[in-house]
């Protein structure tokens, strides 16, 4: 870390030479704010040497303009009135630096997000922009030359979530030579993708493309794989996170188990008795089980809520006898590990919408109403029916209806489009027809097949005789009106293309359930200190230009935890997240805002008011001198101590009292 250089005594201030620039942002600002008037007004204020308005300040010529003016007019303070500083402060700071000026002599005025985009009245908007400009001009004269703070970045990464997003990101980072810890809360990695049969639009088998990546994770020397584990605490900050991981007991010694399943065969439960999570509850497993054939790691797990020995202590423990490697450890305890990493990639995925929330579709009441995930397991050759599509009573369905947008695009449940269900359902339609020879009808509002090869796939379904009925299904009922409907489920739907209400008897209904945020996304959000949208999806820094970075430096997003997306998009985003993390770790350091607090030792009286306020313990008392001092390396720059210091001897770089007071005075002084 570079030694702090921000304590230089305040130089004697000559009258500043301020340059003021107001941006039109094309018409984004200029339509609502009279930019020429703002420039005229700014030019009249004391200290302002020149004021210009320009169409795009952030463009190369715009930045060049500032640089030229700095050189030509010896400007030493710059104010840019344009968009949010969160967007372009770094752009203009860089321009200052290129012209040889300390970048922190810049102040920005947000007249786009805070003015032109939220007000219509041109006069009021211009007046507001004028006030804000004046405040910035008054403030910037108090700015000081500062050096950014360099923070070293550890070269280890934590990947949270072992679905396809986490797997892909972890492998990329590991390939680049970084140590990766992959934490997955289920007993195996693979996520939802492992449950899928084939993938659209190419119909290549999900397991065939996923399993090699899962094995690669297991085998990679740079990856530490912790399954059945959860992150319970994250402390620290970019470059130096301390993450606490809780490893749940699986009652198996992972190092010894080879996944031979002798123990499973030997279990006192002769047959599976408990719903198998991997098969969406369509089959049953024992208390000791391997989650699925390709599970990674190939280690069995014991369900403590089902195992007789763990529940009652009364069991013959036939599994222990069967294991010739002595891998079963009934007294295994949860382990808590603390790891230090430089970056974190969050890839925690999604939950499926619970269709019992829409009782009109009969899920849970009518046995032959399935979800897409259940249908997926039915068509899968390693699924509960070995790939034979069967109703719950064992019959082969002759007619199948797939209902789209169950829990998507519906203001009563979720307003968003889950993006994958149209394609997923069309894929299932082809597979069900292939496996069961059934007639398949898809009920849709729209078919959304945007994607490479997707529309062609829709075409193929149309050509191959999948029926499409456009209309939101009103209900699924077993109420038969005619003899033909007897013994079937009846879909009542307004066929909006034909223009009348239809009753369509079918043997099997598949509900295309949408995606929703993981149930505990909000808890995790708190642990990580990142943001969620109102719906519960993790919030990216910028929807277009920062789709994988979060508001917390060093934490990146990949996959559906950020919003619904299909496998290609998920993999692309995971790659992007890995690249962002890699860029940070490879540079080895990050430059941070020098907005730390500092104490003027001449005025500090050692009252210790500030000490308990600092959540980072950055303030310490020098007992010998009776004064507090701040460890700049620990200070995060919140300013809570500054506001509390009774003697006014704590100040914060970039947010000095005199700067804020100048700003207050500026927004309020009447023209």
């Amino acid at each position, binding site marked *: 870390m570079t030694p702090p250089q921000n304590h230089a005594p305040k130089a004697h201030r000559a009258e500043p030479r301020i340059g003021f620039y107001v941006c039109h942002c094309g018409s984004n600002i200029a339509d609502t704010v009279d930019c020429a008037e703002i420039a005229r007004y700014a030019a009249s204020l004391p200290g302002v040497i020149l004021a210009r308005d320009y169409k795009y300040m952030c463009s190369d010529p715009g930045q060049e303009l500032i640089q030229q003016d700095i050189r030509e007019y010896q400007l030493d303070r710059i104010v840019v009135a344009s968009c949010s500083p969160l967007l372009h402060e770094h752009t203009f700071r860089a321009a200052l630096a290129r012209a040889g000026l300390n970048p922190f002599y810049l102040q920005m005025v947000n007249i786009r997000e805070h003015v032109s985009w*939220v007000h219509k009245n041109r006069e009021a908007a211009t007046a507001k922009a004028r006030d804000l400009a004046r405040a910035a001009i008054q403030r910037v004269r108090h700015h000081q030359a500062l050096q950014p703070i360099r923070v070293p970045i550890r070269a280890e990464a934590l990947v949270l979530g072992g679905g396809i997003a986490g797997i892909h990101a972890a492998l990329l980072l590991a390939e680049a030579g970084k140590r990766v810890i992959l934490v997955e809360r289920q007993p195996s990695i693979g996520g939802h993708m492992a449950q899928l049969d084939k993938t659209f639009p190419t119909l290549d088998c999900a397991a065939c493309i996923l399993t090699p990546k899962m094995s690669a994770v297991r085998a990679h020397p740079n990856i530490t794989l912790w399954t059945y584990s959860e992150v319970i605490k994250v402390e620290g900050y970019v470059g130096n996170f301390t993450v606490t991981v809780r490893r749940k007991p699986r009652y198996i010694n992972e190092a010894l188990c080879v996944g031979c399943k002798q123990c499973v065969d030997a279990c006192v439960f002769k047959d599976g008795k408990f719903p198998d999570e991997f098969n969406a509850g369509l089959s049953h497993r024992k208390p000791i089980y391997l989650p699925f054939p390709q599970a990674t790691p190939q280690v069995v797990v014991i369900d403590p809520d089902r195992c007789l020995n763990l529940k009652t202590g009364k069991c013959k423990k036939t599994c222990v006898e069967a294991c010739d490697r002595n891998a079963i450890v009934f007294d295994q305890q949860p382990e808590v590990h603390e790891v230090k990493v430089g970056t974190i990639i969050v890839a925690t995925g999604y939950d499926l919408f619970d269709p019992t929330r829409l009782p009109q579709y009969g899920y849970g009441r009518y046995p032959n109403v399935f979800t897409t995930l259940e249908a997926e397991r039915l068509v899968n050759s390693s699924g509960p029916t070995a790939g034979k599509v069967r109703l719950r009573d064992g019959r082969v369905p002759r007619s199948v209806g797939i209902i789209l947008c169950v829990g998507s695009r519906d203001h009563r449940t979720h307003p968003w489009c889950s993006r994958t269900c149209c394609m997923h359902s069309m894929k299932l339609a082809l597979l069900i027809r292939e496996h069961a020879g059934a007639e398949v009808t898809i009920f849709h509002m729209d078919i959304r097949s945007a994607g490479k090869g997707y529309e062609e796939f829709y075409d193929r379904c149309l050509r191959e005789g999948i029926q499409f009925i456009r209309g939101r299904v009103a209900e699924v009922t077993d109420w038969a009106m005619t003899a033909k409907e007897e013994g079937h489920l009846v879909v009542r739907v307004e066929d909006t293309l034909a223009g009348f209400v239809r009753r369509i008897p079918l043997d099997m209904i598949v509900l295309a359930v949408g995606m929703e945020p993981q149930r505990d996304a909000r808890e995790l959000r708190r642990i990580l200190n990142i943001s969620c949208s109102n719906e519960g999806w993790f919030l990216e820094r910028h929807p277009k230009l920062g789709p994988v970075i979060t508001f917390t430096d060093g934490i990146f997003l990949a996959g559906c935890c950020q919003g619904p997306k299909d496998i290609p998009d998920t993999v692309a985003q995971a790659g992007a997240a890995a690249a962002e993390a890699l860029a940070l770790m490879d540079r080895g350091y990050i430059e941070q805002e020098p907005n730390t607090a500092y104490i003027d030792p001449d005025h500090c009286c050692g009252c210790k008011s500030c000490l308990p306020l600092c959540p980072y313990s950055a303030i310490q008392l020098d007992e010998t001198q009776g004064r507090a001092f701040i460890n700049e390396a620990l200070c995060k720059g919140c*300013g809570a101590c500054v506001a509390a210091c009774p003697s006014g001897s704590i100040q914060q770089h970039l947010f000095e009292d005199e700067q804020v007071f100048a700003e207050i005075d500026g927004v309020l002084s009447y023209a």
Partner: protein
Amino acid sequence: MPDAVWEPRIVAFFCNWCTYTAADLAGVSRLQYAPNVRVIRLMCSGRVDPQFILEALAKGADGVLIGGCHFGDCHYVEGNYKTFRRMRMLNRLLLALGIEPERVRLEWIAASEGDKLRHVVNEMVDRIRALGPLNLPERFQSWNRELSHQTPPCEGVLG
């Protein structure tokens, strides 16, 4: 322009991580709200020194709005709790000064709550409009004039 029709003047202190970002989001979402608020960005609502608020009122603000992250969401762990406690104390101070405490409002607005920001700003403007101008600078001036004239104090004022 004191002769023009009076419009509430509100100074806002928004934390960088939640409320300032929410205001940016309101902009990106083109949510329209009253143009009376002037935002000053700070890293955390915990940086809001009560002096800032008093200074703003003294300099002519009719109201002050402070925006921070929800409890448990502070980027700096607990800065917003400190703000909350400070505002409770400031409240008593304002009462003692004869300033309606409703002129100072503390709100938790998360980065995703652009719509809440719009509501809060509009409500705040309505509230201040109902309370009327505070006019502290003018009142200071008239007090100063009274003092400089050294007129004998009215009987009974001191006791």
